[in-house]
Each structure stands twice: as structure tokens, then as C-alpha cells.
């Protein structure tokens, strides 16, 4: 019979197998959050569309009319939509993941399950919202009679990249918030600043100096958003390889270290929460 050993050591051999055997809980946690979010609201799931639509409208107005930025040969509203959707995925996952462990403290102090599932479930919720808001893009593209080409097939790869960046940053924030509540105040700042240093409302090609562009691409969401636009808008923005590679390595590094830190600290969560 298999034997489980509980001791003070951090490393557990069957960490990943354990996680796998609890995979249904990931689904249920996400399912709960989605169910609960729209209970007792009048318009329900429509909020998942209304919010990004308003955002897109405001950003388009701000960046096109007020800041007078150029979008090349695609309608500005499409450019903004291409940036808002992946940014929304990142921002909502990041902030929800940060608070997730604290708001599940009751669960964490009463029962064992792989703690990683709690912040991970916020990514699932973020993805569902993302999928719903993709319909906005589809409607806009039909409206502007904009037909994507074969490059659209690469979109899932960029979605995965966005997931990596969101989960990496989210896990870091979640684990840190348990110990240092300071991060509850820091995370809205990160989202706000992140919005301005990501090409959500404008195209990265506005940054022309090469070294500035490299520096700019250290933000993993730059590569993600550029990739989205490249995939959706028939490559109208030229592909920027250094940006993608930087984004990939920064997201990968973020995710790897986040999982490491999370595993290192998760056992003590219950004593701190």
C-alpha cells in the first residue's frame, strides 16, 4: 500500500501527481466563482461584455482623438480591442489571484488540497471572461469587414503566452500577499502602471528607438499584445522577434520562479493567513 509521509521537509515527491488528482477541484473552484459572480445581478453574464466594450470605447477616444495616435491601416477601435482583451485577461487574473488565497483562508485553514489550485482557478475564470469578450472582437471585425488570414491560427500560442505571464505574476502576488499584506495595496498600482507601460491603447511601433523598444519589451505583456495584433490583423504590424523572445523568457522565468516560491511557502500559509 502506498505510504504518505508528513514531515517538515518541503519537497514532496508526488506534488504534481497530487495536483493532477485534484484537477476536478480546479474546475469546481472556477465554476463556483463564475456562478457566484453573476448571481443577483440583473444583466448577469452581460457584464463580461459591457465592461470591455466601455473600456474599448473610452480608450479609442482617448488615444485616437485626444492623443492623436496612429494605428496604421487598421481601424483604431480594432487596434484597441486587440490590446484590451489580452490585457484584461492579465489584469483580472493578476488581481483576482492576488486576493484569492486570503479570501479562501477559511478553506485553507480547514482542509488540505493543493493550494496552487486557488490562484490557478482565477486563471480559468479569466479565460472564460476572455472567451466571452472575444465575441466583441468578432462583432467588430464583421462590422469593419475585416477578414484575418492564416496568421490567426497562431493566436492560441499567444493566448498561452498570456496565460503564462498572468499565472506567473498572479502566483507571485498570491504567495507574497499571504505573508505581506502590503501587496494588497501594491497590486492595484502594478495593474495601473502596467496598463500604461503596455501597448493597450496604442501600437508598440510608436516606440522607434531600437534600445528603447528592447527595454519596453521586457514587459512580457508587450510581446503578448503585439503577437495578438500580428495574428489577428494579417501581420499589419511587422513581427518583432526580440519582443516575443523576451516576453517568452520573462514569462517563463516569472512562472518558474513563482511556482518555486509558491511551493516553498505554501506549507506555512495556514500559520500566516
Amino acid at each position, binding site marked *: 500500500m502506498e*505510504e504518505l509521509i*508528513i*514531515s517538515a521537509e518541503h519537497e514532496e515527491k508526488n506534488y504534481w501527481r497530487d495536483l493532477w488528482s485534484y484537477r*476536478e477541484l480546479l474546475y469546481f473552484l472556477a465554476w463556483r466563482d463564475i456562478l*457566484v459572480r453573476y448571481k443577483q445581478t440583473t444583466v448577469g453574464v452581460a457584464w463580461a461584455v459591457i465592461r470591455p466594450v466601455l473600456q474599448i470605447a473610452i480608450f479609442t477616444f482617448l488615444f485616437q482623438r485626444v492623443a492623436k495616435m496612429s494605428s496604421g491601416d487598421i481601424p483604431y477601435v480594432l487596434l484597441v480591442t486587440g490590446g484590451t482583451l489580452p490585457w484584461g485577461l492579465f489584469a483580472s487574473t493578476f488581481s483576482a489571484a492576488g486576493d484569492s488565497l486570503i479570501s479562501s483562508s477559511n478553506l485553507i485553514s*480547514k482542509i488540505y488540497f493543493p493550494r496552487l489550485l486557488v490562484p490557478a482557478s482565477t486563471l480559468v475564470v479569466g479565460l472564460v471572461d476572455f472567451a466571452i469578450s472575444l465575441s466583441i472582437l468578432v462583432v467588430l471585425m464583421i462590422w469593419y469587414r475585416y477578414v484575418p488570414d492564416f496568421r490567426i491560427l497562431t493566436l492560441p500560442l499567444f493566448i498561452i503566452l498570456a496565460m503564462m505571464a498572468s499565472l506567473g505574476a498572479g502566483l507571485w502576488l498570491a504567495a507574497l500577499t499571504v505573508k505581506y499584506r502590503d501587496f494588497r495595496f501594491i497590486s492595484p498600482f502594478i495593474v495601473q502602471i502596467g496598463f500604461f507601460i503596455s501597448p493597450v491603447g496604442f501600437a508598440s511601433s510608436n516606440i522607434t528607438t531600437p534600445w528603447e523598444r528592447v527595454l519596453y519589451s521586457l514587459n512580457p505583456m508587450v510581446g503578448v499584445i503585439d503577437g495578438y495584433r500580428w495574428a489577428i490583423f494579417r501581420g499589419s504590424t511587422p513581427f518583432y522577434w526580440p519582443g516575443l523572445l523576451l516576453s517568452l523568457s520573462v514569462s517563463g522565468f516569472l512562472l518558474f520562479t513563482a511556482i518555486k516560491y509558491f511551493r516553498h511557502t505554501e506549507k506555512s500559509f495556514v500559520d*500566516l493567513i
Partner: protein
Amino acid sequence: MSDYCISVEHLTKRYRLGQGGSSNDGLRHQLEAGVRALFTLGRGTSKGNKARPAQNEDFFALNDVSFTVKPGEVLGVIGRNGAGKSTLLKILSRITPPTSGQIRVRGRIASLLEVGTGFHPDLTGRENIFLNGAILGMTRAEITRKLDEIIAFAEIERFIDTPVKRYSSGMYVRLAFAVAAHLEPEILIVDEVLAVGDAQFQKKCIGKMNEVAQSHGRTVLFVSHQMSAVRKLCSKGLLLTAGQTGGPGPVEEVIQAYLGKISASERTLDLTKVKHDAYAMQTARLECLSIDDNCPVAYGEPLTFHLDVTCDTAIADAILGVCFDTAEGYRVITLDSDVCGKVLDFSKGKYRVTFKLPRNPLSPGLYNIGCAMFSGGAILDSCNAGVWEVVTGQGDTMTNRGYGGARLTFDTEVAKL
């Protein structure tokens, strides 16, 4: 030795007292330590120079605990509040890691430290069954298969699609326990979850647990303050005293050892050290509540205790009251001095009022004691004094029949009709 399903070896859990984890080594603290480390880097300070709280702030919830549990055994874990019972269960449930030592567990383990963990008030009964089941480690297929059985056990068929926030507390508990009762682990860990719910449902739960332990040959670890439940369910007992244990023994012996210990301590409750409710007219203070020397606190035996008060001014027509609440917060009896017809007129000074019960009617268990002093319809002072345990009296051979909080003596007469 090899025939075990849980083997606990030198288990120790240390908590740091004082500031608690969060503020003592908060971000600022860490940053400071980091900066300081940078500056002292070149000077070659010794490693032992780490900023650590003094050793005397450490508290050992468990201290070198070792025991084994054999498959099919039902082990009752007993001990006073703070003896380490919950910590032991939390470590066994993998909620918190031990500081040192280890536990080997053979078999699938499920723990129930609370009923309805993860219940969401906005979800319906049916939705919560799935959520709670998944949290407890059931698969979706397993839950779907047992859904009807769970709903029937909880007796809430009509309300299964209503959000649980609209449930009565009884329905809520029944649903929560029903899910837990349908878990099928090899080892089940249960904390004092039976303290909730009404007597009848408690009985049903104990019955279900008995069934689990006996017919399915499962191992159960059970923590409770209700000695009658421990007696009924468990074959062996484990007594924890201040984080230490002498190992498992026959349940009756362990219970006796526990009761022997508890009745000897904290018979005097110093009320100057507990929180008092604040009143505008605080002209008197409750000072001390104490059991008379050598008087047992046992069901069916006489009980004599004293309440000491200090009056700052003369207080006429005062009433002193002492009440006994169960751990769940139900008031069982109230002893108000005016009920026995005594008129208390105090002048300034300190007084001792003695309460004498010819026969303690309280069923064995833990009671929260509240004290209060009134005069002319106004409360002058009141507080929660503490907890007393009423133990089984010498002549008491009854086990738990669901008596409720108090038992009275009475006669029956039979007439043939």
C-alpha cells in the same frame, strides 16, 4: 510495529507567540534585515547573528508526540482546550506542517475539521454538494452517483435548488454533514463537528460514524469534548496534556485519567482578569467565582460555589446571577439570587455570596459560566467568567440518551387503566 495505518513519530509543532507571523517579519522588517545584511557583509559577522525573537516566545503545541494507530481502530483524542488536539488533527490533515518529526499514513485519508467547509451562501444546495464534495476529495462521478443518497440523508429534498443562505441553520448543518458522511476514505479524521446540530441529528451522525467504523473496518480519529460520544464510538483513547501524550490506551481508562485531571484545576475563576461588559453605572465589580473546597463538579452531586463582589457605594436590593451555557451557546440554567427569595442589601465593601445547589442538575459537559449583578432593573456589571466542566457523577450509569442540558429528579406513578 509494521501493522499500522498511522504512525506518528516524535511529532513537534512550535508556534511563535507574540506579534504573530505577519507583523513581526513583515516586509519592512525583511527589507531592514536585507539592508543590514548588505552592510555587514564585508565585516564577516557570524551566522548566529540573525534577528530572531527570544526562545521564550516559543510555544509548543505538540511536544515529541509518538503513537501508532492500527487499521480499523477508532481512536478518541481527548484533552483540555489548548492541549494540542486541533494541532494534531491539522498536521494529520496536512493543513499545517510539523516543526519536526514525521507521520506515516497508509491509505486514503479524509478529514472533517468543520462541516460545510467551502459552502457558498449564494449557491444552491445541489451546487454546494458538488463543491463541498470536490473540496473533500470526491470525484464528480462519485458525487453524481451519491447525490440522491446525500439529499435523502440531509432530508432537504424540497429545498435542494434553493440558495443555502435561505436555509435554517439546522438544514445547513444537515446538508453539510450528509456530504461528509458519504466520503469513503480508509482513514477518517473528525474534529468536534458533532457539537453543532440538534440532539436527534447528532445521534444520526454518531450512528453513521459507528456504521462507518464497524461495518467498513475503517480507521477513525475522533476529537470530542463529549465523553459520552467518545465512550460510545471509540475503542481506544489518546489523552493529550499540554502537547504531550502517554500514548493510546483503553478508552475508559483514558477518559478517567482525563476527568481526574480536569476536576482538579481552575476551580477558581479570577474575574479581574476577564473582559467585563461596560455599563454606565458601574458601581460594583464582580471579583471572583470559585467552587467550594472539596466540592465536586459532578452531575447529581451537591454543588456549592461562591461569587465575590466589591461595591463602591451602598447598593440596595441587588440581584446576583450566575448562568450556565453549553459550548454551543444555549443557556441551560440561570441562578438568580432573587429567585430563592433573598434580598441582598450591600453597603460599601467586599462581599462573598454563596450559591448552594443540593443536587447539580447539569449533564456532563463543558459549560460557559456567565455572571451578572443587577440592581433596580439596571445591570451593574457582567462578564463571561470562564469554563467549568461537569463530570459524570459516581452514581451516574446513564450514557448519553439525548437528555439535553439538565436532568431533574422526579417520580413516576403507574396506574392501570
